[in-house]
């Protein structure tokens, strides 16, 4: 019942905050958002999941709950929730980032506050639901439920081109959802009478057992491939992978900075999480058959994202494009199908969530003070804003993979795992990994350069605002994130990686059995 409690707190909180007078909303929403944080910390403390939530018989699922919802024709739709080692860290990531984002909103958001904070809490409920739902239908309701508040948060409180950015975000992600939906239902109809629910573990089990049959003129092998790529594209837009990334910089630049924190920190992880759950757990055979293609997409995302970051002057765009680059590593880790690759990819979702959150929060604080984000418009802020500068430097090093920070652990796991991988013959994965490593170098180089120009050197600034250290409630999120990033980088195994390994090893262990999908095996 704890998952339901989490969702209910956020939803009720959203309702309450929405109707509060504007001046109470910031503090009330912060207070309310601490409740799900406390609950999820408790859940983390007593977490006892030992298996993968989608693979029956691989071990236990924590906090599982199941109730009948509706029966429609051949399918029963159930309220099925539960957490395993993959989803627990992501739920925790959401509940940690939301209070910090709320805190970071106190300075920049000065209009229609109660609606703003209400929508943030509503989005938190949907995010938790996405990571915890184990029935396709429930999951899809939450998945789309994230979209709606985000549309408003960008469209109402965003920058000058917010209308364009909001519509672009909405159209991209909705079309992607439709493509994914069609792909997934291709699988469901292909399974025919072999499934009686839309329970994700049941569907994964049926696919694993080779029960996929032909759908009309499309044979089972082709159906699996088509469905895989429909879902890959659908989720890839959310990640985003090149070439579906163009909505992201617009959305990030126009969104208010605290919303960028949530967008980069948690929303992008919905895409990689869904890829992990649907594509790579349900159809591992297809993923391995097309590993070259997928790894190539990952490497292109890494390199191209980093190159695009090089070309930017806007600090937010730099961080946004480097997110595209970082998410490429997640795909690379997933396709490797080794404990370290798959686990590292999951770990990277959390690590990148914290690091990109920190970077966006820093950019936000700088913008609140200087009212510009352009690298060339300021320099030498370090003397007047020492704490923010320090946090920015820490974030940049995190991106660059400094040891003892979360980014290092994550990328190290991914590279080790990808080097070990044999999904591509003739050491193909090793070559891909080697190429992908250049991404880090480019991003590190560019972040250092941007820092040097805007934060260090002699002070210069043409604007009309007084430059001084940000308020305490702006600095608290930065410091909190640094502490978490260092903790995660120093004790990766104890905090999350052991838990993640329990959940992903059953996927890796499926090994060659799963290659024999479809047909009457």
């Amino acid at each position, binding site marked *: 019942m704890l998952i339901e409690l989490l969702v209910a707190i956020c939803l009720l909180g959203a309702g309450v905050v929405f109707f509060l007078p504007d001046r109470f909303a910031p503090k009330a929403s912060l207070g309310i958002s601490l409740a799900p944080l406390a609950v999820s910390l408790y859940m983390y403390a007593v977490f006892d999941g030992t298996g993968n939530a989608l693979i029956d018989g691989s071990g236990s699922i924590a906090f599982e709950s199941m109730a009948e919802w509706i029966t*429609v*024709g*051949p399918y029963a739709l159930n309220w099925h929730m539960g957490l395993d080692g993959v989803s627990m860290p992501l739920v925790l990531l959401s509940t940690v980032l939301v209070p910090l984002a709320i805190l970071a909103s106190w300075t920049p958001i000065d209009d229609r506050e109660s609606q703003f904070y209400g929508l943030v809490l509503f989005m938190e409920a949907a995010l938790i639901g996405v990571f915890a739902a184990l029935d396709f239908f429930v999951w899809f309701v939450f998945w789309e439920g994230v979209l*709606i508040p985000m549309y408003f948060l960008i469209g109402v409180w965003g920058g000058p081109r917010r209308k364009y950015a909001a519509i672009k975000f909405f159209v991209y992600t909705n079309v992607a959802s439709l493509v994914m939906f069609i792909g997934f239902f291709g699988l469901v109809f292909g399974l025919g009478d072999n499934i009686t629910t839309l329970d994700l573990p049941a569907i994964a089990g049926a696919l694993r057992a080779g029960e996929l049959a032909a759908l009309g003129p499309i044979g089972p092998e082709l159906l699996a491939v088509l469905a895989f790529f429909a879902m890959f594209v659908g989720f890839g837009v959310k990640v985003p992978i090149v070439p579906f990334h163009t909505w992201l910089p617009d959305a990030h630049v126009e969104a208010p900075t605290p919303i960028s924190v949530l967008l980069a920190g948690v929303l992008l992880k919905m895409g990689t999480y869904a890829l992990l759950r649907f594509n790579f757990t349900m159809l591992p055979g297809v993923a391995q058959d097309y590993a070259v293609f997928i790894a190539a997409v990952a490497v292109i995302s890494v390199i191209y994202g980093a190159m695009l970051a090089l070309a930017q002057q806007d600090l937010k765009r730099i961080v946004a494009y480097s997110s595209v680059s970082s998410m490429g590593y997640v795909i690379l880790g997933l396709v490797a199908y080794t404990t370290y690759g798959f686990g590292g990819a999951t770990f990277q979702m959390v690590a990148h969530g914290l690091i990109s959150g920190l970077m966006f929060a820093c950019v936000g604080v700088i913008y609140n003070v200087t009212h510009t984000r352009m690298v060339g418009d300021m320099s030498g802020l370090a003397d007047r804003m020492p704490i923010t500068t320090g946090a920015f430097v820490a974030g940049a090093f995190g991106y660059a993979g400094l040891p003892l920070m979360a980014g290092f652990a994550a990328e190290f796991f991914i590279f080790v795992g990808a080097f070990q991988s044999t999904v591509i013959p003739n050491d193909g994965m090793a070559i891909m990994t080697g190429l992908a490593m250049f991404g880090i170098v480019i991003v590190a180089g560019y972040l250092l350069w941007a820092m040097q120009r805007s934060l260090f050197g002699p002070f210069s600034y043409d604007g009309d605002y007084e430059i001084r250290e940000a308020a305490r409630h702006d600095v608290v999120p930065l410091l909190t994130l640094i502490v978490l990033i260092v903790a995660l980088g120093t004790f990766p195994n104890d905090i999350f990686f052991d838990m993640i390994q329990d959940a992903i090893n059953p996927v890796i262990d499926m090994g060659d059995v799963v290659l024999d999908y479809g047909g009457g095996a």
Partner: protein
Amino acid sequence: MAITPDWAAMAPVLVLAAFALILFIVDSIDPDSTNNPLLAGIAALGSGTAMIVAVVYLLSGVGQTDGAISLYGGQLVVDGMSLLFIIIFTSVATLVHVGSIDYLADQEYQAEYYMLVTLATLGMSLMATAGSLATVFVSLELASLPSYALVAFLKNNRGSVEAGLKYFLIGALASAIFAYGISLVYGVAGALNLEAVASAVTGTELAGILGVGILMIAMGFAFKTASVPVHFWAPEAYEGAPAPISAFISSASKAAGFVVLYRVFVVAFPISAVASAIDWVLLFQVLAIVTMTIGNFAAATQENVKRMLAYSSIGQAGYVLIGVAALTGVGDQSLAFGAGMLHMLVYGFMNTGAFLFIAMGEYWGIGRRFEDYNGLATKAPVACVAMTVFMFSLAGLPIGGGFLSKYFLLLGTVSAGVWWLGAVLAINSALSLFYYSRVVKAMWIEEPNGNLEAVDRRGYPSGLYAAVIVAGVVTVLLLPAIGLFSGTAFDAAAALL
């Protein structure tokens, strides 16, 4: 569950009739009454009571567990489908009554207004229970005649009068064609009772006459449900009518058309019996595709919100037509059929709510175009949240019951082997998000145009607010709680087929 005496199964209809009479008496005691809340209260109490009775009947299994209750020699039939649709009509009518309190504040003939709405609801409820072509025709006229008068209710407004006249002329023509179709079917079958017609037309030699008769009857229903090819009256009538009446006609009247369409075609003309005369499944497949596509494309090009909603309701009619278009005899037939009923149920709330929101806009006098709603959320956030729910639910996003009923329709088409019908539904549904989200964008994201002082000047209409909020809450609740009705809808569908 059986019920004694038999006629007690008609209690919801009798309640409506009684309250229509009460309104009549109140009006004759004080003909010039402008005690609007009292009149609206009586009317809302009547439709509300009828709704509660129908809900209790539906959930306790009246006419379902022991088979349909047949009254007066089969002239009236009470079963799960009729009760479900009576719930739709009465709840829409209740919302409309409550929403009309503010809207009618300065108008004459208020008692007549509520009485006509109640009588039209009564006619629709009879349509839902009609068991023979004679009662179908009589109840259809009982529902239609008050509607014509109601559309032209603002008699000093040229738009309203023109809309009423257009609606009346086309409606009269449709009724004539419909009656002629019935006479042709009677000529072939020698019976009017739906089941008797079914057994009489099986293997008839007069297949040609029967086919023409069925086609004419289908056109009569197409008029009532505002489906292509006789949909063109709808945008005019919905736009010209007072907005609460637009809500009433586009939700309840359309649902009434569908309930008789469903019953007449499934019971009187089972496709296996009349296939040699006319393949009406194919006919409805074509009509469904054309109706949803034309409705959606036309809605996407509108600049006037009320007119956009009018075209969108044509598109929604296309979705519901899938209920009969998927009766191919393959797979689980009750799925798409029941899904059509459920979509009508959810649509009843979300569409009524949307039109009542427009009524609010008319009450304030802020204008009719998309731009006129710019920034409205700064003045009326609660109503705008409700409108957002209606728009997204109509578009099929999972924020209201519209998502589930549409998905059930999709599932039904696939299980009936007409997946291409589902594909057209999915594409249309994705397209519809474009124009529905324009309203949302205007309300929340655009800057106000300076026409919103009217909101402060006229204040907040409490009746309309109550109706819109209730419709919004029910729309949202139908997402988790659709199970309350989905079981009975699918059972009712299976019982008929």
